[in-house]
């Protein structure tokens, strides 16, 4: 592709430069006409990215302190400091939950904690309305192979207090979390009304 006037005119689709003269320039012109090429992400995505990175940065600081303090102060001091740190910094892995097109204003955070009984998944939600009569919300974890496991149900009709859900499977093998709207009596399968999504990301990615 030369950067001369003729090529610029061709790319600009001016008169006298019909298509078919250059496959690559024709492809570029087609891409420039596509609405998807010009689409911008919703405004809240940037804020969500920054909030997630900020939250994980705090956790990283937590980890680094736990790494070097023992070398300085010994086992007894570590025990005391670890207790102090746990009181200051949040524990547990956080997953941002994002409203889908069905519920674009909804947002939330799932906090994962491994227990002896399985994974406790605390879910705090904002702008997710109470489930309509005859329906309820259901949480799911999904594997990358497309296998879903229910982690509990709720309705939020009493307010938006945090909800605790439970997973008996290892969330590392089921890294996606969905919230669906279910209809009472419609069976145990996930519905096609997914209102929120989030995903646990591999640490090495």
């Amino acid at each position, binding site marked *: 592709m030369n*950067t001369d006037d003729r090529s610029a005119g061709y790319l600009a689709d001016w008169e006298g430069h019909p298509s078919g003269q250059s496959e690559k320039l024709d492809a*570029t012109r087609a*891409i420039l006409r596509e609405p998807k090429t010009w689409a*911008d992400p919703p405004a809240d995505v940037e804020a969500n990215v920054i909030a997630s990175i900020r939250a994980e940065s705090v956790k990283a600081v937590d980890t680094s302190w736990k790494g070097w303090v023992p070398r300085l102060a010994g086992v007894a001091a570590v025990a005391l400091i670890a207790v102090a740190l746990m009181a200051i910094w949040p524990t547990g892995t956080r997953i941002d939950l994002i409203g889908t097109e069905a519920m674009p204003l909804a947002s939330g955070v799932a906090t994962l904690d491994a227990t002896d009984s399985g994974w406790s998944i605390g879910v705090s939600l904002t702008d997710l309305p109470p489930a309509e009569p005859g329906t309820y919300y259901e949480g799911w974890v999904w594997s990358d192979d497309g296998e879903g496991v229910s982690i509990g149900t709720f309705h939020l009709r009493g307010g938006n207090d945090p909800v605790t859900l439970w997973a008996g499977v290892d969330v590392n093998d089921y890294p996606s979390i969905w919230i669906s709207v279910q209809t009472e009596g419609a069976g145990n399968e996930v519905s096609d009304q997914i209102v929120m999504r989030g995903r646990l990301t591999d640490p090495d990615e």
Partner: protein
Amino acid sequence: MDSEVFERFRSGDEEAVKWVYSKFSGAVFALSLNIVRDRGRAADATQQTFIKAWRAAESFDPTRAIEPWLYSIARRTAIDIYRSERRGSAVEVVDTADPGPSLDRIWEVYQVRLAVDQLSDDEREVVRMSHFEGFTHPEIAERLDIPVGTVKSRSHRAHKHLLVLLAHLEEPS
């Protein structure tokens, strides 16, 4: 990309994260939209891409170009979301035999959007109105309230600039 900015991005500096996001989010979103074909899922993919990039930044060599690296993360993330959605759907999905855009096409979309986002605001607007909205030069002049000659010169400059930015997509002669 300036290695100092990348270092700040890697450390989680908020201004650097915003800078990286503003520079690449349009291209990542356009790429994602071409794969998942849904604005909500494309938004999910865009968000996850930047978070994954930040997490993986520790192992990235800042002397290399960031664009191909970010592209590979974005493409993989969007494909994961697309596959996960299709496998998880309780609704029978009828395959329309539409395989979606090719990998070459997705790479080109990403590159074209990156190039467009490097144009000045004036140049970008003329390119957008010309290709996306399909306006003629006189129509653009009327809408921007500037002389037709200015539109022509601006369009010519913008497209020459695009050619330079997209020169690496050159077809073999």
